[in-house]
């Protein structure tokens, strides 16, 4: 199944372009995404709704809705070109190499089936020893995601679970196969704030133990930067900034990342005003002629509207901005003093 050399990235997107076909014409969701993720990495993909992050996550498993169409580019997962696979190998890739955790934990479980039966289905064909161990395997899996009383949870129906419990069950099902890549699309957005941290801890601990690569899609830059070694910022269907979490958060190289970081509530001290990003995210009908952020950018110059920015390297980050170098040298993007909340061992990064 897996003909990878260890050095080869496990996820590679190359100039991926995806449109949604709407009644009034196409809407561009991904506008040329380039991304490479190494095995074992934990990557936070950050962006507003409409930035294309969910589309990117779905593209990993070719789970795009039927009205979505790939226009250009490729997506490789574990060495397989996802969009070129026949149905059977595609299913095998999804089954063996990919795990997904979605936003709505209870909705992601079939309401007509007991939790145990659903977990068993996720395990099917993967249990070396027959019968006896199936129930134990289900209980072990549920125990692994730190659910108290796994036997009771296995007997329950999804609507009898809390959101946090359901998300742990979904995680257990996704991790049942020890996938190479786990895509977590806003896994805690629907959960209470006190449960969030527990669920995130569980996800990251499990994936670290299994050596699974994690793509965590979120709109919360700070939450992601706290827990991931690497942060990828998406805007207008492109990856506009990509680099080590501490660098992206402390010295954002793209004006959008900077605006995002300053608008986060956790950033402000009590009494301080938040700086919202003026304007709204773009709705593209085709390729953006220039930089998608140009309309909202404080540092906009003429060519931003007409010329697509090339990839620039600034500090440790890869940035799509015409003025990235310039902005760094003039220190135009200062951040307010921020609480030190990046643990050194994660911040030290890869």
């Amino acid at each position, binding site marked *: 199944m897996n003909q990878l050399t260890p050095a080869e990235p496990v996820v590679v997107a190359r100039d991926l372009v995806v449109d949604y076909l709407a009644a009034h014409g196409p809407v561009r969701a991904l506008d040329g995404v380039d991304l490479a993720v190494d095995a074992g990495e934990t990557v936070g993909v950050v962006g507003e709704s409409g930035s294309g992050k969910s589309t990117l996550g779905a593209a990993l498993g070719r789970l795009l809705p039927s009205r979505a169409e790939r226009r250009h580019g490729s997506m490789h997962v574990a060495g397989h070109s996802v969009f070129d696979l026949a149905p059977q190998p595609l299913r095998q890739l999804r089954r063996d190499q990919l795990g997904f955790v979605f936003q709505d934990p209870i909705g992601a479980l079939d309401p007509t089936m007991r939790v145990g039966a659903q977990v068993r289905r996720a395990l099917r064909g993967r249990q070396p020893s027959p019968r006896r161990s199936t129930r134990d395997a289900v209980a072990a899996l549920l125990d692994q995601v730190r659910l108290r009383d796994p036997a009771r949870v296995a007997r329950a129906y999804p609507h009898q679970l809390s959101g946090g419990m359901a998300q742990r069950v*979904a995680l257990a099902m996704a991790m049942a196969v020890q996938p190479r890549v786990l895509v977590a699309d806003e896994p805690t957005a629907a959960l209470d704030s006190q449960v969030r941290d527990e669920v995130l801890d569980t996800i990251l601990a499990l994936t670290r133990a299994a050596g699974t690569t994690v793509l965590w899609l979120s709109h919360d830059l700070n939450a992601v930067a706290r827990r991931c070694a690497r942060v990828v910022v998406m805007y207008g269907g492109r990856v506009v900034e990509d680099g080590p979490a501490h660098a992206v958060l402390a010295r954002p190289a793209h004006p959008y990342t900077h605006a995002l970081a300053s608008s986060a509530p956790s950033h402000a001290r009590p009494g301080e005003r938040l700086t919202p990003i003026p304007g709204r995210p773009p709705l593209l009908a085709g390729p953006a002629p220039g930089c998608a952020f140009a309309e909202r950018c404080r540092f906009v110059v003429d060519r931003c509207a007409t010329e697509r920015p090339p990839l620039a390297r600034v500090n440790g980050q890869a940035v799509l901005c015409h003025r990235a170098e310039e902005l760094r040298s003039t220190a135009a993007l200062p951040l307010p003093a921020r609480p030190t909340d990046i643990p050194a061992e994660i911040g030290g990064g890869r």
Partner: protein
Amino acid sequence: MRLFTWWLRRALSGAGTLVGVSILIFIAVRAMPGGFAETILGPFATEEQRAELAERYGLDQSVLVQYWNWFTAALSGDFGTSMVSQQPVGAELASRFPVTAQLTVMAILAAAFIGVPLGVLAAVRAGGPGAGGRGAVVGRLAGGLGVSLPEFVLGSIVVYLFSRYALGLSVGGYVPLGDDPVGNLRAMLLPAAVLSVFAISATARTTRDAVLNVLVEPYVTAAVARGETPWAVIRQHILRNAAPPVLVLLTTVSAYLLGGAIIVEYLFNLPGVGSYVVHAVGRRDYAVVQAGVLLAAALFIVLNVVVDLVVGLIDPRLGVTTAGRRT
């Protein structure tokens, strides 16, 4: 405990409905212009003859007394005797019921085994490539035609075609299932087919809508994301979750089919309950009409209870023991 009170409630409301239906039909058959005596004796009978006949069958008493007599007898299982044939109504209905039941069951089975797959196919195709293509248009036209074509039109066409030309099946010639299964099926196939057209179309349509609603649910995406085969996703997740509205529709359709069976039995000359009751209505054979309508109402009530139980088994959120509880 909850289940017990549920049963009790359903049984009481069912019994109440039956009493209400019996009162309505009792009044309705007597309100029809031209009573039993007029129908039997004809327009030239004398007043004395009519009075004598009315007295013999107790039709001279007040409606209230008549109903009470009928009601107390019915409670002990005696549904009276047919005033036309002098046969006990209960026995006559019991001997004719299997024909109607077989007809309805065959039509319902056709709806389940043809209509449901068609509906699933339509829904899956609607979401995929080629949606809105020629196939979809033809399917929708056929479905609309099937729902709106009355049995007496379709039945007459079928009767004509199969009587006029040798098409392998003949019209009429009913034999009971127990006596000659093959001959029975040969006689029942055409009427059942005529009856099933509406059921199949309605079922296919409801199934399509139900499946379309389920297809967008996150758990379907999640199942696909786990690498389950399309067939496994359909069988394990989509069919189960789309089943409740289809089952409820099938109950309603089966009530409708009991009505449709009247026409079909008439057309194909089958000795079922429908033709029996229709003849009885024409001759003002009150006891027969009352018992026939009551039987249909009772069947419908029982079917509804069964479907509520089954739906609860499929989707525990809709279960009878959780009804009214929000989670």
